[in-house]
């Protein structure tokens, strides 16, 4: 397939693609419909090739940051219909109460999730969905680790409050 010598720039880029493609695809599909994900992922790898010297050893957060900017630009430039946001598994769209505690808990969770701001959802998703550490997530959002940690703490607290509203706070963010 390639005539490049082992360790060449081309081979290192191919290796980067092999190592990161599934995670990057998942990251993008959490934020845009699957039909739009391929274009975003393609743009990310084009950017990564052009700026290969800037890609750190821990490439995933760097690629995710490029993907976020790409998706944000598409949202601003093409769709304009909504801000970049994290999606929820489609199985929750059809979930209806059946009297079981399990379904009730899941419905509560998705309702609580939807009361959060897009920014809170993004912070939580970077950790819970994308599996990033605070350092990595801070790289994606281009902020300091301490800033991310503070935002994560606040987002968790708001999610907790939405799940277990105090009587006087019920509906405060609804």
């Amino acid at each position, binding site marked *: *397939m*390639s*005539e490049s010598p082992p360790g060449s720039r*081309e081979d290192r*880029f*191919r290796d980067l*693609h092999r190592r990161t*493609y*599934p995670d990057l*695809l*998942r*990251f993008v*599909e*959490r934020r845009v419909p699957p039909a739009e994900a*391929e274009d975003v*992922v*393609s743009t990310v*790898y*084009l950017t990564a*090739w052009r700026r290969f010297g800037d890609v750190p050893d821990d490439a995933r957060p760097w690629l995710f940051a490029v993907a976020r900017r790409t998706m944000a630009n598409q949202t601003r430039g093409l769709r304009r219909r909504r801000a970049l946001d994290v*999606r*929820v*598994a*489609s199985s*929750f769209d059809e979930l209806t109460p059946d009297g079981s505690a399990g379904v009730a*808990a*899941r419905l509560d*969770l*998705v309702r609580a*999730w939807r009361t959060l701001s897009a920014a809170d959802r993004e912070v*939580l*998703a970077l*950790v*819970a*969905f994308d599996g990033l550490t605070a350092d990595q997530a801070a790289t994606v959002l281009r902020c300091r680790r301490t800033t991310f940690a503070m935002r994560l703490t606040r987002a*968790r607290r708001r*999610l907790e409050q939405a799940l277990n509203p105090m009587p006087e706070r019920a509906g405060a963010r609804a």
Partner: protein
Amino acid sequence: MTELKDLDPARDREPNQVEWIRSTAHVERVISGTHASRRSAWPRRTLVGLAGAAVAAGVLAGIALVPGATDEAFAKWTPTPGQPGSDLVLPQARACASEWGASAPAASDVVLAEQRGTATILVLKKGAGLAECMAIGEEVFNYQVLADGPVEPLAGARAKTETWSSSGSGDEQYSRVVGRMGPDVTKVEIRLAGGQVITAGTGAGWWTAWWPGPEGGEVGTFEVVVHTARGSSSHDPIDLTR
């Protein structure tokens, strides 16, 4: 946070084989520079199927690529050709001949065979003339007549382009070029406007190459570089039809 994982829309999502092929193909195009060229603002006046009047009798058929075959062919494409094994060439030659209704060819009927990844181009004797055929495995997806009768060999360092064209659409366009050369020509290369250099496969006075991209159907987007022991010269393909 553990319960939140249930909300993940991409939980357990893994790219399937087709997605891997498509993405790998894209990466290869990015590396080779052909991705950028497809999105450039080069002129797109079409010259599909242009052929030198002296030799080429014209396009016989263009068979659509099987879905997925393009991606794999692009992913595994190489700018320098290899030589397909004899176990592959003869079955492919038979498949090509069967497309134009000819009897099974012998090994001696194969004038030129070159392979880039999964795709092979063969130049074959067809009756008294010649035809060119592109195949993946034993599946033929493009073929054309190069000559209806005997072709006078070129002398010395002369080189000609006989036909060039592009096939497919959108991100799946690919280009082919076929030409002839005299015995003093040591190598023929295609240089795309984006800078990429593709080495043509050669044999028995013929040369050919294919590559992912639309340049074969455009004007001014590639040059033919002819090498001899004395040096090299670059030509617009249309100048080499004379």
